[in-house]
């Protein structure tokens, strides 16, 4: 059941904006030691599980240590990418003045170059969330997820494209900001293209060398189990992060926007778009940590620079605000939401027609 796109105006919009601003300020004033402790603890867990995972893969004997090694390394990569890397690069921990946790210099354990990510994610996606044509994260330029996007016969194959994207997700993220499509269509000069490709080649080269040359080589005759183990750990991380990220914006009830709709958008309307363009996942504390608190996608999109564990604290209050203003707060368990994503991918593989969208005001 598709929910309606809610619009607010006048006094209601101003009040809505003020309430969310006040909530943000309240958390901002409370940020401190607790958040610093959290991120340092997460980084320690990442380091410990990376060392033990890689250690087991390289020097372990037998299949049990191999599987344990894969689990350790996958955990390290998932936590590092999601709870540490993604959140640090949003500037959530810049308040600490710790140069190793600074948003502008942090580099993460993934083939995507940090500088590319800061641009395509922090600037484009978070600013233009779910605006068709501006938010390049919407469908990643390869998936049709709403009637408003153009259908071609090759769209019929999009479940297959999705499967390929899911298992290679880090590569999808890595090439995202190069904007290859624009180059292929002749809308980008070669010089600019080369400038965009270089950091990608550099970063992905280093990552490939690390996972598929350096660590296997250090294990001597055990190199096959390291190589295969690293490949599987990367695969697990890819599938998991893809599932979580798709649940954040492409579930059934998520709304999309046109450029025209967001002309002269106020901060309150921006908040409204962030809420209606995102969806949450429900789960335990560890589930939230493993998603980098992207399970609180709505809160994250409202306040991307608040330390992530705070999202869990403020979620009930955001939900309460939404309820009072009649804004749909999209949340559910992982399987329910992910099923919604898969339905959306399959449904729009067919030439679905654009119907007039019901709008409530």
């Amino acid at each position, binding site marked *: 059941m598709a929910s309606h796109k809610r619009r607010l105006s006048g006094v209601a919009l101003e009040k809505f904006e003020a309430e969310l601003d006040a909530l943000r300020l309240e958390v901002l004033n409370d940020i401190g030691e607790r958040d610093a402790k959290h991120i340092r603890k997460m980084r*320690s867990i990442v380091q410990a599980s990376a060392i033990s995972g890689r250690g087991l893969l390289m020097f372990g004997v037998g299949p049990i240590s191999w599987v344990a090694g894969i689990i350790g390394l996958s955990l390290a990569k998932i936590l590092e990418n999601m709870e540490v890397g993604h959140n640090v690069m949003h500037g959530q921990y810049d308040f600490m003045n710790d140069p190793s946790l600074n948003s502008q210099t942090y580099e993460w354990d993934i083939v995507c170059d940090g500088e590319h990510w800061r*641009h395509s994610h922090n600037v484009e996606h978070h600013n233009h969330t779910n605006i068709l044509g501006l938010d390049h994260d919407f469908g990643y330029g390869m998936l049709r997820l709403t009637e408003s996007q153009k259908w071609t016969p090759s769209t019929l194959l999009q479940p297959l494209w999705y499967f390929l994207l899911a298992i290679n997700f880090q590569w999808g993220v890595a090439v995202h900001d190069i904007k290859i499509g624009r180059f292929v269509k002749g809308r980008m000069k070669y010089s600019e293209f080369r400038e965009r490709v270089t950091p990608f080649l550099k970063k992905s080269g280093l990552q490939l060398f690390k996972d598929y040359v350096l660590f296997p080589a250090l294990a001597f005759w055990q190199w096959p189990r390291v190589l295969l183990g690293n490949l599987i750990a990367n695969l697990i991380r890819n599938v998991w992060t893809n599932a979580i990220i798709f649940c954040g914006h492409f579930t059934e009830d998520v709304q999309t926007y046109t450029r025209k709709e967001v002309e002269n958008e106020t901060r309150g309307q921006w908040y409204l778009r962030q809420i209606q363009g995102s969806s949450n996942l429900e789960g335990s504390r560890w589930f939230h940590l493993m998603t980098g608190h992207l399970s609180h996608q709505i809160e994250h999109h409202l306040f991307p620079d608040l330390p992530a564990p705070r999202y869990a604290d403020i979620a009930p209050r955001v939900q309460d605000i939404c309820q009072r203003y009649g804004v749909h707060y999209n949340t559910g368990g992982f399987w329910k939401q992910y099923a919604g994503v898969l339905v959306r991918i399959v449904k729009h593989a067919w030439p679905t027609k654009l119907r007039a969208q019901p709008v409530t005001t």
Partner: protein
Amino acid sequence: MSAQTKPKQRLSRVRRFLRHPLWAPLNQREAWDRLATAVNPLWSLMEARARVVKLIDEAPGVKSLWLKPNARFKGFRPGQHVLLELEINGARQARCFSFSSAPRADGLIRLTIKQKTNGPVSHAAQGLKPGQIVRLSQAQGEFAPRSASQKLLLLSAGSGVTPMLSILQNVANETSDQDVVMVHCGHNENDIIFADELRKLAAQYPQIKLFLHATENAGRLKEEKITALVPDWNERETLLCGPDGFMQTVESMYAKAGRSEFLQSESFGHRAAPIDPNATEHVIRRENTAQAFVVLSGQSLLEGAEAAGLQPKFGCRRGICRSCQCKKLSGTVTNLLTGQISGPGEELIQLCISTPQSAIELAL
């Protein structure tokens, strides 16, 4: 020809090879550092850190911090200062403090810290406990006598005594016969920091002459008083440290006598510009350049910089992406989103949502 430089170059080439990102994460020093720190919080491959040994009350609101630095700390010369970095509610903050003792054989260092209103580091330093670990920079500053044979005059007021004590102790330790006169002012006899220590040094070493001046009884230390106490002041190399007003008095006295080149002054860091909410525009200076531009009150620093023809990096222009994040060295800004007013010192700010309240210096 370059026989001497070659091994050095080779070494740096080896080092560059080892530090190449190709070997990451095996050569990530931060990662090894965290492991070392987990074993012993004082251990570090890259950071100078120190263990708090003891805290001594010197005067009301003034405490001395005795620290035992780790091997990364490369020592100091008397008269130098150091950045003491503490973690205050999760955020690292650093301020400059002078060493108040000469270098010692046991490696202990002493920093003497006066509690300041609106001084988060000086405030937190008072609450340190023995055994805690703090971060240090390397010693900084060129404040020191230029020669050991020249007659010396040390002029200080208030907490400006700290570098002087370090210099004086060094003169005593090295048992040189350098002729030193020290004039120090404090509010009254009781709250002069290190009065006993200074007197003891003066009594023990005849080449050290000491005058303690209490402003409560004798008024502010003026030019006439200095010339009366130290008739040969204009033959002496002079070191000066104290509050702004005091330093200005002495500086103009030396300028008048054409002796400015024999006067070295020490004041800590940038004196942040005062907040001026009524000003319609503020001057923004850029670090390490003579360039400055003007930003209107209420205008964001980003817009102001662009209007001045600069091209700082930016992204969303609404305070969410941090692309325009920049280090403010001094001055006060208001956050346009939250209305919060920043501190006067060094911190990271977002140019697109910060508007100046005072003159600002940016690392732009």
